[in-house]
């Protein structure tokens, strides 16, 4: 077996050196608990047969490279520069352990330090951690941190936050005694400012907002920030990192915690994972922050270098008093994000953001030109928008998917009141002919 470098002869010699005559003499599992049959698993495959089998299995999925897709909703098709995978394939990185032994891990530590810096540059925040699991758990960790920080127990979450994120936040808070999670209803595709004003008071630990929200709409962040801060609560903002090439940052909105899904920064859509949650906050709150942090320091001879720091917040030291239970996170995906940000650079990220903005608005205008199609949400948006169709969305999507076109997300599946509403995502990847193809399909169905 190619993964186990041991011959029978070697095994015998090793057993003899240990001083036992057989493997059975070595095994400390009581006989009553031994499994006395082989596991009932599919038979092993040779490497060539395995590759064929896996290729065939993968072909049972439609891949977006051969399909025209306008799906977004938290997983985005942005161009991934070739540099990214070439760095990820450096096996000194991907086969490495968490850099606890700093001297043998300077390379990885430096990439994380640079990643933390780039997340701060992107979000306008002061400090960032090495990563959490994904956008959804990042938002949940934001809520937990706000509860720790304010010692308050009520969390408000906008109904315009990604439905899956709201579900994950609910799960994460469900075990905590006395913690209340309250949803703020939406109005016109944004969180209702009236409902928000009614719900906010000095018992609120945090307000959780997504911007752009699940519908692609931009929330009225300044008003929201002002009100939550007036009551002494924290503002936790989930943002699309690509949008920050052009949109005002969480830092400019005075957010206390900025989180988000980092997938769009150089990570494959990969059926929903592995992705990477980013997490940034204000410097004064760094000791409340979850996750690993890399810091710059010097060695015994004064040479500059890096190590993991603030580990006294973490579970392996603090056990049940840790700021979070997270240990293994998404380091390689964070590396992909760093390589992406460094490759596109200052000008490139702005271009990508502008291209998303320009192309999505061009598509929006064309689609709205079709008689019978309406735009239920009038506010500004970034790369996703909602249209209302004069016919059943689900049947329409099924027909189109048979033609190799995924037109968007059926909002009725998440919000019963938005039956016949379609969420469309347009990125820099879409050609204008592709947008025209979508427009024609909608036209034909209308």
């Amino acid at each position, binding site marked *: 077996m190619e993964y186990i470098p*041991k011959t029978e002869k070697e095994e015998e010699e090793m057993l003899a050196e240990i001083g036992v005559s057989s493997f059975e003499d070595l095994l400390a599992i009581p006989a009553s608990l031994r499994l006395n049959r082989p596991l009932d*698993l599919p038979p092993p495959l040779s490497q060539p047969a395995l590759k064929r089998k896996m290729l065939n299995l993968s072909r049972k999925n439609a891949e977006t490279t051969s399909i025209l897709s306008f799906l977004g909703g938290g997983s985005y098709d942005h*161009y991934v520069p070739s540099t990214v995978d070439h760095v990820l394939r450096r096996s000194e990185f991907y086969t490495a352990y968490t850099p606890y032994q700093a001297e043998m891990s300077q390379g990885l530590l430096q990439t994380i330090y640079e990643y933390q810096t780039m997340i701060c540059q992107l979000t306008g925040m002061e400090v960032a951690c090495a990563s959490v*699991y994904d956008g959804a758990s990042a938002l949940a960790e934001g809520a937990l941190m706000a509860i720790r920080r304010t010692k308050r127990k009520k969390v408000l979450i906008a109904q315009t936050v990604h439905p899956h994120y709201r579900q994950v936040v609910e799960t994460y808070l469900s*075990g905590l005694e006395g913690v209340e999670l309250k949803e703020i209803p939406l109005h016109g595709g944004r969180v209702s400012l009236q409902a928000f004003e009614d719900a906010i008071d000095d018992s609120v630990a945090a307000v959780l907002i997504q911007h752009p929200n699940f519908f692609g709409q931009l929330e009225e962040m300044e008003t929201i920030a002002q009100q939550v801060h007036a009551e002494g609560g924290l503002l936790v903002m989930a943002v699309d990192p690509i949008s*920050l090439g052009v949109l005002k940052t969480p*830092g400019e909105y005075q957010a206390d915690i900025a989180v988000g899904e980092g997938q769009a920064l150089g990570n494959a859509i990969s*059926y929903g994972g592995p992705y990477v949650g980013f997490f940034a906050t204000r410097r004064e709150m760094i000791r409340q922050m979850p996750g690993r942090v890399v810091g710059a*320091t010097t060695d015994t001879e004064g040479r500059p270098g890096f190590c993991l720091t603030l580990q006294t917040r973490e579970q392996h030291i603090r056990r049940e008093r840790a700021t979070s239970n997270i240990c293994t996170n998404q380091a390689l995906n964070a590396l992909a994000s760093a390589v992406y940000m460094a490759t596109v650079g200052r000008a490139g990220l702005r271009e990508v953001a502008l291209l998303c903005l320009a192309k999505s608005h061009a598509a929006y205008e064309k689609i709205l030109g079709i008689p019978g199609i309406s735009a239920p949400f009038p506010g500004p948006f970034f790369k996703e928008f909602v249209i209302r169709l004069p016919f059943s969305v689900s049947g329409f999507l099924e027909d189109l998917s048979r033609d190799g076109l995924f037109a968007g997300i059926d909002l009725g599946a998440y919000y019963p009141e938005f039956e016949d509403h379609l969420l469309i995502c347009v990125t820099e990847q879409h050609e204008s002919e592709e947008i025209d193809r979508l427009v024609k399909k909608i036209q034909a169905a209308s």
Partner: protein
Amino acid sequence: MEKLIFEKSVEGRRGVTFPTEALEGFSVDQVLPKEFQREIPLPLPEVSENELMRHYTRLSQDNYGVDTGFYPLGSCTMKYNPKINEDVARFPGFSQVHPLQPKEASQGALELIYELEQILSEISGMAGISLQPAAGAQGELTGMLITRAYHQGQGRQRRKVVIPDSAHGTNPASAHLAGFTVQTVRSNRNGLLDIDDLAKVVDEDTAALMLTNPNTLGLFERQIEEIVRIVHDAGALMYLDGANLNALLGLTRPGDMGFDLVHFNLHKTFSTPHGGGGPGAGPVGVASSLIPYLPFPVIQKAEGRYLLDSNRPQSIGRVHGFYGNFGILVRAYTYIRRLGAIGLSAVSRNAILNANYLKKKLEAHYPVPMDRSCMHEFVVSAKAFREKGIHAWDIAKRLIDYGFYPPTVNFPLIVPEALMIEPPESESRETLDAFAAAMLEIRKEIDQAPEKLLGAPDTCTVGRMNEVQAAKQLNVRYEPK
């Protein structure tokens, strides 16, 4: 030290360019009111592709991975990461599949998830599996929330989770996050769970015992049947931290031992790369009575088709944005299909053989506090060297100079000056011999030249890092001068 990428930045350089025809005649202000626009600068680095590749290549060269050499890291199972797994995970039919695309267009992904669940169920003897948790700690949280929901479903509230003093720190942290208080149970002088102490602390307020078996000393809890009886008699659940599952494949099964919940670490037992700190995957397995509480959506098979079931009224909820770290699941599935049942049991047999072989080579030179047949790992103590001013940490750092990654140090907490050594099945006898030889050399140095240990490492680009300074003078991001 390699310069920071920010220090290499030159205004106007590009690592990639985009076609910008679509921006001709486009005015941002027309679609985006000024008040929504970024005003602060975006100081991301500006480097050419060549400079970028050299930067990251050089950084990779200043880093150690399994492909570089041996990682005897206890409880981390740093085994070889097969290359076919990497190739398969990058097939466009896996990597370019959108999580919200129609189920009819995702049947391959769902089939893989379903099949992997079946396989983990057979390996562990647990009736139901969820692949959603992204890492072991998220699996623990999921398991603890299921525990909580189960007791609530029985119409009672139980507040306490019992955890041995030898457990990983994530166990108490996860239990706490799920709203439990943590009660510690002692280990006895043989390094096993103290049954008498357990009987004292387990009561009608106990929700679960979280146990690692084999435990963090690499010892199999031989009295596991008695432990299970005590815990179940009190109406509490048995939770297995599956960190050490690499010792059990095909030899015994957690479900058969009486565990009600278990989490797996696919990045340990099933060969997916650790990635420098993730992504991993931390699936959870449960007994049949706990299946209703598993996270939704649940993958089901009906009439040869796979579908997602989110209508699970008793579920603890969703723990991941989509279906977990799918790309990692692809790798683990590929690994298991390469090995089959015989190959998987060979994994555990060889892991156990390697550990006992290495223990035999070291035990005359480094005290093994609980000396008996170990499973896949063992712990030696450097306490005897304290009087010479040498700590476990110094031995660890000196190993770096011999070209090895150090073992897990100062853990488990019940052994003073612990070095926890795990030689996975993928390591050859020559590697084990070379590691043992280095440890023996270091043992001589402790007596004859302790300064070599105290000054170690001296073969890296840096020496020992000042961690106190890092925490006191926090510098966690680059700021231009």
